């Protein structure tokens, strides 16, 4: 059965402010959605909702018709979320960081492949504290490949990446979608995903309100 992930009539209130309301989306196999909108329109918040890290104040998110809040751990295996923070430990090596993250999701994973996709193979045994910001970012992104999750949730994935690394990311996304994977990415700059639908979160802002702070933590 082809997978489908949908959100229906979502409302999210942070603090006293409504970030967005009446937001619905649907994503199927091989689809990609690029989230657009100014700072504070709720892109990060929407991604965290999709990841199951936040609960919507109203509305439901469903994976193949099943409400994800019913079984958040099964949902956790379906998604991999890369947020603003890289979630890597400076004291561990690149390979240790990657295999730890992968072992949380998948029962079997190809470490070497994930390292190769983001050209980290030569850095595998280095402690992460020696890496540059861009290399750390590549490590965080390489977990997507290792996690084997069908849905990738990317929050500003291109931050601190150079052109070469952006190309690696784009080809990883293309390979993922070719295998039936789904991608939702929030980006500010240009990110050329083929036949991705653009989704402007700002259109769901409550009327007459000012944008809310983008960061959800």
């Amino acid at each position, binding site marked *: 059965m082809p997978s489908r992930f949908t959100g229906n009539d979502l409302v999210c209130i942070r603090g006293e402010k409504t970030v967005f309301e009446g937001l619905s989306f649907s994503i199927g196999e091989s689809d990609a959605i690029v989230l657009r909108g100014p700072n504070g329109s709720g892109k990060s918040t929407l991604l965290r909702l999709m990841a*199951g*890290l936040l609960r919507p104040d109203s509305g439901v998110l469903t994976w193949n018709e099943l409400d994800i809040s019913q079984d958040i751990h099964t949902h*956790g295996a379906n998604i991999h979320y890369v947020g603003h923070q890289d979630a890597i*430990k400076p004291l*561990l090596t690149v390979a*240790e960081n990657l295999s730890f993250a992968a072992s*949380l999701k998948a029962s079997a994973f190809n470490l070497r492949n994930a390292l190769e996709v983001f050209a980290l193979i030569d850095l595998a045994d280095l402690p992460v504290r020696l890496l540059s910001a861009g290399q750390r970012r590549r490590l965080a992104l390489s977990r997507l490949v290792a996690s084997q999750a069908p849905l990738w949730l990317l929050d500003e994935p291109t931050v601190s990446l150079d052109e070469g690394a952006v190309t690696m990311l784009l080809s990883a996304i293309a390979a993922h979608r070719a295998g039936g994977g789904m991608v939702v990415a929030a980006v500010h700059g240009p990110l050329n995903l083929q036949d991705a639908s653009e989704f402007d979160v700002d259109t769901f802002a409550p009327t007459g309100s000012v944008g809310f702070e983008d960061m959800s933590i």
Partner: protein
Amino acid sequence: MTRALIQILRRDLRLALRQGSDVAVLVMFFVITVSLFPFAVGPEPVILARIAAGVIWVTALLATMLSLDRLFQSDFDDGSLDLLVTSSPPLEFIVLAKVAAHWLVAGLPLIVAAPFLAVALRLPADGYLILIAVMAIGTPTLSLIGAIGAALTLGARRSGVLVSLLVLPLFIPVLVFGVAAIDAGISGLAVRPHLLILGAMLIATLPLAPWAAATALRQSLT
């Protein structure tokens, strides 16, 4: 799922060992604080022997409390908690794995150091085995209860102070029965009831504390 939990345990142990100074500082704190007491109350062997069990236990509580901040704080700060919450094992079991790792690096060294400090405080010979036994049963309970406090105070300002206010009162039952068991052993009374009560506390906190801490962790992410 078991494999993922073992990975979490191994990662936390590896992190603690590569940052070995953390463990050393904790043990040094334990040793130095206990050795302050002979200076404060005088070297009178009778007095020291009387207070030995209490001093060691109170200091063990304080040392455990000091080590709680590394249980979840760094995972919270660097975003690893997002990863853990969305991983396949239930968060309650993840908390349990992290508490086990915490106990191995923060509880076990205290148990090893305690008999040596007991010598310095002239604890009577009958008390040593009981001291080790009650600490072996009591310190896991401290780590478990501490996990609730550590999870509740994530993201709070001055969380170190807050965690002590939350957690120290909850440590009192362990303190009472931990000291009472040693006192009973020294004076030739039955030790078993005290050990059973400490065991009961451990068994009760084993499922309840991870559940409470996991709920607090989920709350901290919103």
